[in-house]
């Protein structure tokens, strides 16, 4: 049962092959058996899951099944879930029981999906390897000596290990697409504003966006349909009809223009990754797509721009953790300042502190214009590059990550090296564009992903092309041997 995709589960539930309770129990057992090694979940919500499965089964028997009725999923532990710990991977929120549901959580529950638990992540979504989690790193199911990527490493690893067919995640600079690439699964970062951020613990508010991770583009389309939509509680959520992404997947891609940025397809690309992405592009070309060269002249400035904007917003957002209203509080504070300083210093990890310090610096008087204002201007140049490139192309392709999964500890000593991980993914966040990663090959037994970036609100076109690619190839069906069909 654990090898089924969301689409297959929906078909099986409809035909009565098995009930939601049966698949829910079976996956919960599988998680209890395999996850102690992988560490992809922070919390399991077994009782709530079984109750939700039962109500999904009875809704189905009454003929009231909708959307994802009865499908087991997991939420990244960055989404508030009423009555359930919502930690954001941090000691700061280890004791935080969310008093309300995030809009995304509510939307997914309203569509009938069954949440099995909350997945592990880098602390406050700051990391590219899951090594900054307070709950310990997630292991990559393809090789447990290696990282799953981050920050949504728990969601990506759980889907890759067939613990759950789909999971929610968030992406501020690549946190859906890079772990999807490293774990051999499909992940979508929608257009900024497509999915509500209400109840999603904030990292960098102008960049954060929630999206799905699943095994196929079709499953991501189904999940995104249930997640997306206007929400008056999020002032940046866009009031725009959510298309039926799953209904345009089979459209022909004949004549689709796929842009290849010359800044990425050059001598610096990892040659094995480049070969696999080229192969994938050839498949798409054979299916009728046209490949065109595009120019993103400011591509090399995306990482430095991001490392001004994201820390600036993070230092502001994380100032709310004061040890007073919720979250961690130090013992015996001697005065208010001591309460703030010690609560924050004892509960935030090194990477979070580092980003708060950088953010505080770039926003401080005297440096604001030189760093923050300048970064915002360059952000516009990056966005303009895409607007121009999209005159020649309908989608832009590149690798999703620099290479396959790296070993634990390999990049922790040098933050700058870790930051390079998001070279291909960061520009889409700066420009607010939809983007996705899908598996396109294996290098020495480890998966690698190809990325598509689309125009604003053109998730449908991107998912269509990805689905067509997945109809022609079987990279998305590959599973890590220990966690696939054998076990």
């Amino acid at each position, binding site marked *: 049962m654990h090898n089924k995709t969301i689409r297959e589960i929906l078909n099986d539930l409809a035909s009565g092959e098995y009930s939601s309770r049966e698949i829910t129990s079976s996956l919960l057992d599988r998680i209890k058996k395999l996850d102690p090694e992988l560490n992809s979940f922070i919390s399991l919500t077994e009782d709530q899951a079984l109750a939700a499965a039962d109500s999904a089964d009875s809704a189905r028997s009454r003929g009231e099944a909708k959307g994802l009725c009865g499908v087991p999923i997991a939420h990244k532990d960055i989404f508030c879930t009423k009555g359930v710990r919502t930690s954001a991977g941090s000691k700061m929120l280890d*004791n*935080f*029981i969310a*008093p*309300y549901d995030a809009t995304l959580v509510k939307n997914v529950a309203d569509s009938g999906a069954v949440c099995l638990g909350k997945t592990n992540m880098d602390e406050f979504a700051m990391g590219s390897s899951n090594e900054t989690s307070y709950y310990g790193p997630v292991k990559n199911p393809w090789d447990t000596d290696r990282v799953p990527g981050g920050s949504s490493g728990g969601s990506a690893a759980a889907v890759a290990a067939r613990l759950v067919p789909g999971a929610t995640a968030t992406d501020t600079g690549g946190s859906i697409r890079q772990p999807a690439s490293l774990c051999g699964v499909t992940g979508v970062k929608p257009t*900024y504003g497509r999915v509500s951020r209400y109840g999603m613990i904030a990292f960098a508010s*102008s960049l954060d966006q929630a999206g799905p991770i699943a095994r196929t583009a079709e499953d991501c389309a189904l999940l995104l349909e249930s997640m997306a939509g206007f929400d*008056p509680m999020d*002032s*940046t959520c*866009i009031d725009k009809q959510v298309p039926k992404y799953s209904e345009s997947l089979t459209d022909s891609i004949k004549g689709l223009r796929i842009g290849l940025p010359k800044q990425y397809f050059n001598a610096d690309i990892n040659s094995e990754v480049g070969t696999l992405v080229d192969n994938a592009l050839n498949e798409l070309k054979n299916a009728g797509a046209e490949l065109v060269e595009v120019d993103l002249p400011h591509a090399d*400035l995306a*990482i*430095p*721009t991001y*490392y001004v904007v994201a*820390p600036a917003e993070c230092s502001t957002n994380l*100032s709310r953790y*004061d*040890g*007073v*209203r*919720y979250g*961690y*509080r130090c013992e015996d*504070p*001697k*005065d*208010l*300042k001591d309460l703030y*300083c*010690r609560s*924050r*210093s004892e509960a935030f990890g090194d990477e979070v*502190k*580092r980003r*708060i*310090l*950088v953010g*505080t*610096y*770039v926003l401080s008087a005297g440096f604001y214009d*030189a*760093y923050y*204002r*300048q*970064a*915002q*201007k*360059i*952000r*516009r*140049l990056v*966005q303009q590059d895409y607007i121009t490139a999209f005159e020649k192309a309908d989608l832009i392709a590149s690798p999703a990550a620099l290479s396959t999964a790296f070993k634990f500890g390999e990049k922790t000593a040098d*933050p*700058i090296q870790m*930051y390079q991980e998001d070279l291909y993914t960061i520009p889409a966040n700066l420009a*607010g*564009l939809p983007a996705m990663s899908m598996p396109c090959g294996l290098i020495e037994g480890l998966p690698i992903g190809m990325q598509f970036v689309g125009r*604003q609100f053109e998730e449908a076109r991107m998912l269509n092309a990805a689905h067509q690619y997945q109809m022609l190839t079987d990279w998305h069906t590959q599973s890590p041997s220990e966690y696939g069909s054998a076990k």
Partner: protein
Amino acid sequence: MALTPDEVAKLAELARLSIDSKDAESTASSVSDILHMIDQLKKVDTSAVAALSHPMDLAQRLRPDEVTESNQRDEFKKIAPSVERGLYLVPRVIE
């Protein structure tokens, strides 16, 4: 831009963090590395470019001035570290 451990300590104070003295050197060095990396932005001529604070160039949405949420004071107090008679407790601020 390289920061000294003292400058980082000052920065930490502004952010209400305290850096352990044994970590002062390494924190100063990693923050300096990041500042060095972002310094390359200064080379770009942006005199004719408008700042982009938000990818969608949105205007702030307004809503009717109506009560839409119920009072959840008790719910929120339940998750606070220290509460007395419905008030958040903090160390004495005014002597």
